[in-house]
């Protein structure tokens, strides 16, 4: 049982921590500083010293678990954990949300919690939870710079992902193909696998990112969010298909802002929280341009 006093907690933590002496000393010093603050806070709330220490220690949970959480893990162990988590995700289920673009390759998987993005060929084997996990981990193994047209395997990848969460990808693909394919060929297809707090996105088509929104096309070439924070800062950002090669944000004072273009998104800080945004000018990879007026302040102007 974890001690309820600060000295006892730190002693047990030090005993359980792994790593060299310098690392352990650094961690103990850091935790001790934090406990000092928590004890002072509790004392200021009227607790006596013993109650204040017990309250402070309780916020850290068990020393054993904290020591384990602070341990230095090997890369191989993390890889095993990720594979197991992905397998569990497939077994636990969720739902698949499909946008479309026919006969387009799977070009990547975005695993939000790990902030990883990469493209690769998915495993073209019989669908199963294990296969989905293998496909996803395989997808994440190839560097972003080596993405290629993988149309031969794209459907197998979608099938295996969908099957892992109990959804018939074929019917979804057919339905969305009929209803959402852009006539200009600028649409995309993404498969989103949700389970618990995880959101794994397999992206098919021109996009190198994904959105849980309807397909992108000439009328809806990018998605747009404006974030206006309480500290006075503001930003405009959104997902960007490969077909969109340029974005220019038109401000209320007549100036424009060129956002940072990431592999699957664009992002720009605004001068201030009160800066008005009039719209966006979007350039496609075929040289055509379109201007999207901002007619719904606070919402996506392209919807």
């Amino acid at each position, binding site marked *: 049982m974890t001690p309820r006093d600060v000295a006892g907690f730190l002693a047990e933590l030090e005993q359980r921590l792994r790593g060299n002496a310098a690392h352990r000393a*650094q961690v103990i*010093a*850091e*935790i001790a*500083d*934090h406990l000092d*603050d*928590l004890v002072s806070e509790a004392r200021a709330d009227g607790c006596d010293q013993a109650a204040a220490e017990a309250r402070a220690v309780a*916020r*850290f*949970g*068990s020393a054993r*678990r*904290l020591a384990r*959480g*602070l341990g*230095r893990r090997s890369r191989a162990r993390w890889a095993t954990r990720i594979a197991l988590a992905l397998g569990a995700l497939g077994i636990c289920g969720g*739902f698949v*949300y499909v946008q479309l673009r026919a006969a387009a390759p799977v070009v990547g998987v*975005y695993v*939000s*919690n790990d*902030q990883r*993005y990469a493209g690769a060929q998915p495993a073209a084997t019989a669908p199963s939870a294990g296969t989905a996990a293998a496909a996803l981990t395989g997808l994440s193994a190839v560097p972003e710079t080596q993405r290629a047209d993988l149309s031969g395997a794209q459907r197998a990848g979608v099938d295996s992902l969908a099957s892992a969460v109990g959804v018939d990808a074929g019917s979804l693909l057919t339905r969305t193909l009929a209803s959402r394919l852009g006539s200009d060929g600028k649409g995309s297809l993404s498969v*989103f696998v*949700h389970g*618990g*707090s*995880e*959101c794994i*996105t397999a992206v098919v088509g021109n996009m190198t*990112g*994904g*959105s*849980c*929104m309807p397909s992108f096309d000439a009328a809806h070439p990018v*998605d747009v*969010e404006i*974030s206006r924070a309480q*500290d006075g800062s503001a*930003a405009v*950002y*959104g*997902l960007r298909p490969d077909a969109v090669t340029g974005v220019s944000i038109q401000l209320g004072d007549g100036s424009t802002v060129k956002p*940072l273009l*990431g592999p*699957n*998104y664009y*992002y720009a800080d605004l001068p201030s929280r009160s800066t008005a945004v009039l719209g966006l000018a979007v350039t496609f990879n075929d040289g055509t341009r379109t201007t999207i007026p901002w007619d719904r302040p606070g*919402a996506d102007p392209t919807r």
Partner: protein
Amino acid sequence: MLGGDPIRGHVDSMVLGALQSGPTHGYGLVLRLRELSQGAFDLKEGTLYPALHRLERAGKLESTRSRASGRERRVYSLTPLGEQALQEERVAWSAFSRGMRGVLGGSG
């Protein structure tokens, strides 16, 4: 106030987000998260420190010993990789939340 399961899976993003306004130490981060979430999130230290060390090992945070609150403290700040990860998480979260709104039938 939320703690535990509702915020599990978002801890790294919350830490990165809380550090965008400037470096601070672990205790400062807990207070900052409480303030930024208007009291909705109470991130326990037993969850925070593993996240801080994990993010530092991943190169998304860096820490230095700095004088804060009258004494030497280990202070964390975002690295360029951390700032990039935060931007990507903003985009992913935006997409996820819109998708959930659509599925749950909320306005939006």
